[in-house]
């Protein structure tokens, strides 16, 4: 098949105060193909796309679409000229209906100013029928699960009938079935001759659907190759600029006696129905399961961030309540939350404040005054121990990379001297290179005799880091497997048990 060049971005540069975000980057997308854009976080993928989409104004370089040179000044202009985008962050008006969101910015009009609900409903049905999306167009966005909201966002991008469609991490909140659904939609778009730019961290996805792969590193173009010629290892090598021989550090921790015994806990308002498990000293216990299986709820329930109904928690043979996070912290628990940006970091505050916030009472002098000296020392300890890369303690945490932010938060929790660490997706949105460091930290913690419970949606990660894995399905524990003698297939089978 012939695939003429549809979009050509040449020599794109973009500078932010103090940072060269893009330096002479090239990208060529052919019609009817999927072009994967890869690179670690901060490599400049999203910046490049924002330059294309008119959100950022590029400093240098040319963009040619269909033979015509373009320079979009706003998203509106990009959309009107055949470039649509599924944004990484779900940008939706949550209080409005699905169809209001779908047609936002281009409502079908009647008599100049009126919106025609009838035409809107008709077109929504047409789009949803073509794409086989089963979402109620009249439902208010906030009432839908995240995966369905993501499908609406995908349908919206497709509905612009664009020549170029950018998918920026579209699958991060989708279930396996929905990912397959998305791939069918992408196939359909390829048949129509669209050019797809696909950004994702998931290697297997990339290798499956892409025709070409462009790798970026530190704002620079590294390579563009046909997907067929690349393997996962080669891509990682291109991305990090060095060879990553092992994805996981050696497992040196030795599980000891049971320290935590959880019996039949359930959520009052959430989908957690029944969870029973034990945790040993020095053990890394994994929790697997599909999205919505209640794996996050296990941790939040245990930590008292959700209302518990029934069940007992026994730590060192003593029954504890953990009714609120405050009480849980006192009992030696720590929770690394799933959404770092929303519930983990205090973005505009500095590293030091982010580090000491959970252990403030340790730095009190005379019961009222916080000791700057002590806080500084403890933060310095965290920076050293966690290998946090930051210019100073006074740097805003949001200016750090995802991996370094995560290390700050782990440091924050270690200062509370926890015995049980609850880690929810500890490596989400973190570079391949930095993931290794987080894994090493987790294993080190277990080596020091702490109990770690880790939730993850990435199965290789659970298999590589954990000792045992419990699998959640439909809000219940579907089974427990030994991480050394199990397979992804076995876990997936268990995960589907109560669905």
């Amino acid at each position, binding site marked *: 098949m012939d695939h003429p060049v549809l979009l050509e971005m040449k020599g794109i540069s973009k500078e932010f105060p103090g940072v060269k975000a893009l330096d002479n980057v090239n990208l060529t997308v052919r019609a009817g193909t999927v072009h994967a854009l890869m690179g670690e976080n901060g490599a400049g993928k999203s910046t490049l796309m924002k330059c294309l*989409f008119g*959100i950022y104004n590029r400093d240098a370089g040319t963009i040619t679409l269909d033979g015509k040179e373009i320079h979009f000044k*706003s*998203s*509106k202009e990009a*959309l*009107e000229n055949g470039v649509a*985008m599924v*944004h990484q*962050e779900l*940008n*939706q*008006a*949550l*209080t*409005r209906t699905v169809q*209001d*969101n779908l047609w*936002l*910015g*281009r*409502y079908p*009009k009647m008599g100049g*100013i*009126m*919106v025609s609900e009838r035409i809107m409903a008709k077109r929504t049905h047409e789009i949803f029928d073509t794409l086989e999306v089963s979402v109620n167009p009249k439902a208010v966005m906030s009432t839908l699960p995240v995966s369905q909201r993501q499908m609406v966002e995908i349908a*919206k991008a497709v509905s612009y009938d664009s020549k170029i469609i950018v998918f920026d991490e579209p699958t991060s909140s989708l279930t396996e079935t929905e990912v397959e659904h998305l791939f069918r939609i992408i196939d359909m778009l390829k048949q129509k001759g669209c050019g797809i730019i696909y950004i994702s961290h998931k290697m297997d996805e990339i290798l499956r659907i892409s025709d070409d792969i462009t790798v970026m590193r530190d704002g620079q173009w590294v390579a563009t190759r046909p997907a067929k010629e690349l393997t996962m290892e080669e891509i990682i090598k291109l991305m990090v600029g060095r060879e990553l021989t092992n994805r996981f550090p050696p497992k040196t921790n030795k599980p000891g006696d049971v320290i935590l015994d959880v019996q039949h806990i359930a*959520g*009052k*308002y*959430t989908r957690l129905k029944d969870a029973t498990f034990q945790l040993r000293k020095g053990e890394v216990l994994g929790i697997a399961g599909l999205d919505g299986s209640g794996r996050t709820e296990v941790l*939040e329930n245990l930590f008292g*961030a*959700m*209302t518990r109904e029934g069940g007992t928690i026994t730590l060192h043979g003593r029954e504890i309540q953990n009714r609120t996070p405050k009480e849980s912290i006192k009992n030696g628990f720590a929770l690394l939350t799933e959404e770092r940006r929303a519930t983990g970091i205090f973005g505009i505050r500095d590293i030091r404040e982010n580090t000491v916030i959970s252990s403030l009472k340790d730095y009190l002098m005379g019961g009222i005054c916080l000791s700057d000296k002590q806080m500084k020392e403890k933060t310095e300890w965290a920076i050293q121990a966690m290998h946090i890369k930051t210019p100073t303690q006074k740097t805003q945490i949001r200016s750090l990379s995802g991996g370094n932010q995560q290390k700050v938060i782990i440091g924050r929790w270690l200062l509370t001297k926890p015995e049980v660490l609850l880690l929810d997706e500890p490596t989400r949105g973190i570079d391949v290179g930095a993931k290794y460091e987080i894994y090493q930290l987790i294993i080190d913690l277990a080596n020091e005799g702490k109990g770690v419970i880790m939730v993850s949606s990435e199965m290789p990660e659970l298999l590589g880091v954990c000792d045992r894995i419990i699998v959640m399905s439909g809000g219940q524990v579907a089974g427990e497997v030994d991480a050394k003698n199990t397979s992804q297939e076995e876990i997936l089978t268990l995960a589907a048990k109560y669905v």
Partner: protein
Amino acid sequence: MSNESKELAAKAKSFDSKKAFDLLLNNALYILMIFAVIVIQIINPNFLRPSSLINILSQTAAYLPLALGIAGCIVLTGTDLSAGRCVGLTACISASLLQAVTTSNKMWPEIGTLPIPVVILIAMAIGAAVGVFNGFFVAKFKLHPFIVTLGTQLILYSCLLLYVKMGNNGGMAISGLDKSYNDFIKGSIISVPTGNGTSTPIPNYVWFAILLATVMWFIWNKTTFGKNMFALGSNEEAARVSGVNVLMTTVLVFALAGAMYGWTGFVEGARVGSNTANTGLNYELDGIAACVIGGVSFVGGIGKIRGIVIGVLLLRLIFVGLNMASVNQDLIYLVKGGIILFACALDMRKYLVKK
């Protein structure tokens, strides 16, 4: 098996009682309103007479347009503190342009009496201009509307103080209005018989308020602008990347609100009859209170015209009712504050996700 069915029955029952409780809470505002009406009626049997009902209705109509305007700003997660002073300014201007030629210290003797439509246009245009000013600062400089309108409010007050000292007025209350103006606003085309051969007229501004509420309902629900406004209030970034002109929409929302204050000012000019620089003082607080009572949420992107009407009505009902029940004047604010807190706590319940 019997155990199981028992369990199921118990579950169904608890579900029903929970549902009933929710229904009760979700309509608590109406229940409170009915309860208040009954209590006041018992204390003062004149409360539900047509004359007093028309009084409540007229007061609602006077305050409604301003609340309708402010509501748009609240939908955008903002607010508008300049509303009251804007009403004051437009009221004084309207009144000064429509003084009878016979009035001894007529502010502008040389212009005679302007035609009413021209004055309406002037008042609404001044209001809209203030709105554009507010909206521009909010959208262009990304200032919080609270700050912008706090500044505008003070600026407007100076304008107002200077204005009432202009012409022949010399800082006096502006009164001696032309008959055409009074008739247009306070006149009546329908009177309701109130027994004993008397009848109470429904003032014209009630009909205007109904008209404006209808127009606003249309704008909010049926136009592109309305939908963009809600989308913007719900998620500004989503609106921007979907191609909505954020600056224009914001400016328009504030301009529309300003036009509403202009209208309110025009009505107040005649309704108050004797306007000073104090006209309109704190109107914005009543307007904001009515909006939040009526479910226009500060969370943004949520609100209904129906709710605003009910909010204004409830506040006026309580005001008139407490007066008629001879409750100590000093206590009225306590009741009002209590209602605001109660209503908003109830409203927030709907958006809370239980964990």
